[in-house]
Structures are given as C-alpha cells and as structure tokens.
C-alpha cells in the first residue's frame, strides 16, 4: 500500500508540475494546435519550434501543442473535442477527415472559437466546406505530383534513368495524407508505362528494411523509391545499396526520393544519396496559423483565400541554402543530431 501511494503521488506530482507551466502565467490569449504529427514524427519539431518563436514575439499569447502519438482519426477527433472543451481563443487543426471533423469544428465555430486549418485542408468546394478562417499549408497530393514531375524532367535530361517501376513506401497504412502523396506520385508517373506500387513498410526500422528488401527482390524492375517520410529515406537507400543497385543519384540503378525539409532529407540530397525532397513549409505551418488567429482576435482579419506554404522542391541546387535555413531554426547541434545518414 505504501509503495503504491508513493508511486501514485509521484505520478500525480509530475502531472501537476507539467501542467503548472500552462496555468501559472497570466496571458490574454490561448491558442491550441491539435495535430496528427506526434511524438513519432520528427516534423513535430518544426511546429513546436515555430510555436515557441511565436510566443516569444507575442508575450500575451500562450500556445499549446496537442497531438496523437499514432495516426488515427478516432483519436484525433477525441483530442480535438477535449481541446475545444478547454475553451481556447483559437484552434489550428489539420482536416484529416472532412466527415469526422465537421461536427466538432462547426460546434466550436458556433461557440465563437476561430479555427484555422493547417497542413491538410477541407478538400470540398468553398461553399460546402467547414467554415474555418483560412487554410495554411501545402498540399499532399501536389507534393507527390510535383516530385514525380521533377523526377521525369531529370530523366528526360539524362541525369537519372527513366522509370521502369516505382514503389511508394509508406510507414502508416491508415494515414490519409500519405496515401495522397502516393496518389500524386502515381498520377505523375501515369503514361510512362512504369509499374506503380504502394508498399506499406511499417514504422519499425528493421521490419521496414526487411519488407522493402523483399519487395525489391520480388520486383526487380523497380528503380524509383519514394519514401513518404524523410526519416525512412536512409533505410530505402541502405536496402538498395546492400543489394548492389547503385542508389545514389546517377544515371544507373535505383533513384530514391523523399519529402520534408528535415535535416535527414537535406543532407541526403547534399550527399548525392537522394534525388529530391519536397518541402511543405512546416515552419510556416506552425507560425502562420497562430499569426492569423492573433490578427483575427485583435484586428478582426478574415483572409479570403488559402495560404499555401508549399510544395517546394528541394534538390541538389538549393539544398545548401535549405541547410542554412534549417540550421538557423534548429541550431547546429540539433541539426547534426537529426542527420542520421
């Protein structure tokens, strides 16, 4: 009994200590970002960094970052409802699923809480969609599409081989955004006659490599690998390298592409391992929604169009500049740590 009490007391203390930070300071506004980019996704760093920068600039605003730890609509809606229950002054949320998010968001908007969509918009026509203030973010489908088109341009220029088989390696089969990236890539590759496959590799590194290797073994015509997360690109490169498929960017063997402006993506491009990545402007996706919520609260601004932060192609030509930018946000040490090549 004694041990149990101590344990319980310790955990409750830990909770209050963490919570205390949020309650202690007197602030005028409290904005909440409810995200599906969680502890299992390195891109969370962009969003939390930009929220911190925003708080620094606007000392009268508290920002909170709430996220699921795996991609699940069910869980995400639950978090959203609980966030609404705290009556924040503004909410930023990706519209992962129109149908599931419409109910709670309409209720929040009716209750006078301004909502900004980020990262994923409500894909329906403007008059049908959830009446949020605006959308800030990229476009998952375009991310895949533009990257695919860029690769075809490079192939036409003779820098890389023409596609004979493309695999879109996805780490979460339930994540709608990842499916949209693959769909974009597929659309770009249509007409080339190359075989396109979507492969669910899972998020476990050893199992993912095993899966990808098995796939490459069974489908020897595959020569483009598109990893829909930056952190899985070294795995794909490693598998192809082990199999002697010359995965570096050259006119033979396999070509690897990925997404995100993460250090691992940028450094992969700089080292010649990766052809290109696609930035969605993650830093802006954290900062800009807060800015719009603040302006809406203080000035009554209501932007009349979506604000696109991407996609922007990162390739060997601009990777150095990207590296400098990202270093300035994360700091040198964190940047180097995140480079897992």
């Amino acid at each position, binding site marked *: *009994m004694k*041990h*149990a*009490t101590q*344990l*319980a007391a310790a*955990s*409750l203390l*830990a*909770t*209050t200590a*963490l*919570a205390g930070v*949020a*309650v202690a300071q007197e602030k005028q506004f409290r904005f*909440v970002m409810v995200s599906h980019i*969680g*502890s299992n996704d390195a891109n*969370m760093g962009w969003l939390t960094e930009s929220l911190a920068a925003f708080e620094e600039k606007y000392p009268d605003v508290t920002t*909170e*970052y*709430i*996220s*699921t*730890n*795996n*991609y*699940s*609509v*069910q869980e995400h*809606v*639950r*978090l959203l*409802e*609980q*966030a*609404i*229950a*705290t*009556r924040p002054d503004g909410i930023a949320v990706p519209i992962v*699923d*129109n*149908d*599931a998010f*419409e*109910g709670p968001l*309409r209720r929040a908007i009716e209750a006078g809480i301004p909502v900004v969509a980020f990262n994923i918009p409500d894909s329906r026509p403007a008059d049908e969609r959830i009446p949020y203030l605006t959308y800030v973010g990229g476009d998952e489908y375009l991310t895949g599409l533009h990257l695919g088109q860029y690769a075809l341009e490079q192939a036409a220029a003779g820098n890389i081989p023409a596609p004979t088989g493309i695999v879109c390696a996805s780490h979460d*089969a*339930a994540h*709608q955004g990842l*499916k949209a990236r693959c769909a974009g890539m597929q659309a770009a590759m249509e007409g080339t006659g190359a075989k396109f496959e*979507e492969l*669910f590799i899972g998020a476990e590194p050893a199992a993912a490599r095993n899966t990808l290797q098995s796939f490459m073994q069974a489908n020897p015509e595959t020569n483009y690998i598109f990893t829909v997360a930056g952190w899985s690109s070294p795995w794909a490169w490693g598998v192809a390298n082990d199999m002697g498929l010359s995965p570096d960017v050259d006119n033979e063997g396999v070509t690897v592409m990925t997404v995100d402006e993460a250090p691992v993506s940028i450094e992969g491009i700089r080292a010649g391992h990766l052809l290109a990545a696609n930035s969605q402007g993650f830093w802006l996706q954290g900062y800009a929604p807060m800015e719009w919520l603040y302006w809406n609260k203080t000035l009554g601004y209501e932007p009349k169009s979506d604000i696109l932060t991407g996609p922007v192609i990162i390739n060997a030509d601009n990777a150095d500049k990207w590296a400098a930018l990202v270093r300035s946000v994360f700091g040198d040490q964190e940047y180097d740590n995140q480079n897992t090549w």
Partner: protein
Amino acid sequence: MAAASLSGLKPIVRQHSEVGVILIAVLLVIFFVATSGGRWNNSYNISTILQITATLGLMTLGVALVIGTGEIDISVGSTFGIGALIYLYFAIRIDPVFAAMLAVAAGALIGAFNGYLITRTGTPSLIITLGTLMIFRGLAIALTSGFAFSVPYKERDGLTYFILGGENIFRAGSFSGVNTGFLWLIAGLVVLTIALKYTRFGNHLLAVGGSADSAHSRGIRVDRVKIKAFILCGALAGLGGVLEAGKLGSADGSMGRLMELQAIAACVLGGCVLAGGRISLLGALIGVFVLSSIQSYLVVMAVKPQWFMVLLGVIVVAAALGDRKLRHWAVRK
C-alpha cells in the same frame, strides 16, 4: 476508534469488488477538479468523456463477461474497427438500421469464431484472439485502402443516425448533453448486470469461471457458456464500433487500435479477476471512466504529447496496484 471503523468497512470492500475503483475514481475527480481550474470539469469535456466511456465501455462489458468465464478476448479492438467499417459501408448504401444490425452480427460472428476455436481445440484464448486481432486489423487496413468509409456530416441528421451515436441529448442550459451512445451503455449495463446476477446464464457463466470442472460436473455445458460469452463480447464490440462510427461519420483502418488493451486494463481496475469467476460490470465501467478521465485530464492540461504515454502506462499499473492492495487489506483478518 478510526482503526475499528476502518475494519468495519472490510466486509463491504470484500463483497463489492468495485469499491476500490470507485474510491480511485472519486479521488481522481477531486484532484482533477481542484487542479484544472475548470478546464477539466466543464460540461463539454464531461460529455466528451462520457462519449468515450460509452463506446469503450460497451466493449469493456463484453470483455468483462469473457473474463468472467476465465478466458480473455483481445481481438475486440479489431472487431470494433470491423463493426465501424461495416456500418459505414452499408449505412450510406442501404440503411443505417440494417447496417447497424449487420455490423453487430459481424461482431457476433467474430466472437463465435473465437469461441468455437477456443472451446473446440482447447487452445489458450490469449493466442487465438491475438491471432484474430491481427487477422481483422489487417483486413480493416486492406479494406480502407480500397474504399472510403464515411457518411457526410449533413446526411447524418436523421432519427436513425441520432439513435445510433447521435449528438447531445438532455442538452439543458450550460450542460451540453450526452451522446446517445451513453444510453446504449446504460441499457447494456442494466441488462447484463441483471442477466449476470439473476438468471441461469449468469450463474453458469460465473460457475464456469470459478471452476470449469465443477461446473462441468454439475451438468453445465461449459463450452456453450464460453461461446455465448464470446458472442456477446463480439457483438458488444461491434455495437461500440457502430456508435463510434455513427458519431464520427468516418473511419480509417486504425479504428479501435489499442482499445482492447484499454478494455482489459479497465476490467482489471474495476475489480475483475483475470483468472475468472469474479467480475463487476459496474466496476469495469468505472474503470473505463477512470482511464478516459486521466486521458482527458492530460490533454486539457496540455501535458506535452511525449509525456502522455509514460504517464498513462505508469498510472494504469499504479492504479491496478492500489486496487489490489485495497482488496488485500479487506481480505486480511
């Protein structure tokens, strides 16, 4: 004096296994109200917690019944997901009521499959249901990569949609009301508690969990009782899936993922003995409430998402330990 009055409570704790979890729930609620400054204890949040309690609770009732027979069912998370997908697929194409019945029937079928394999082959239920957990999770993921499973928000305002997980009834003043799923849960709790305590089926179920050999020697068809429990469990998980899908209007392949573990944790918190024979349905539901309250507290207090899992894991074990120590104290002379 104090010691004497405390030991006077022992028989109550001994006979009502839910006392421990009620105590934990009360203490937690007091703590949450005191420290959250109204962020936890507002009507909107409470109604959210009750909504989670409703769907997870229906699943937990079924799991508790299976635990009562001395078996375990960890496939319910996948059954929940399959139920949700079936409901959404047919609700928009045929009719919500028909779809709901189909989803519950599918759940019952999965339960029957589990029960049949377990009783027929005498294999541990943990392994069989682990197998079906994976089978139907894979199926759910495969299904959702081919079709969209959703019902648009605007179309979800008919009476049938309302009954199957619709929004906020009893809305009054500042109280934002509860989801109809909660009524299903209460109905399930009442019916099953009566069935468990006051009917032959309940007596047989507990006897099977207490001592399958003794029950068998008294002429009880142990296998049939177990299969019935699994069928009920599957059907309840399917119903939970329907209500969750009815509320969300959409589902992905991860629907219900990890809920099986929460359901088992809730049962243990609520005083169900995993060895079988002693269960408390009310206790299990309060266990669900405790779990969803903790989760919601961490969210509304903006605990960093990284801490979330650590605290959840530690609190589940600590609460199970506290509950056990309390019961230990009550049994001691």
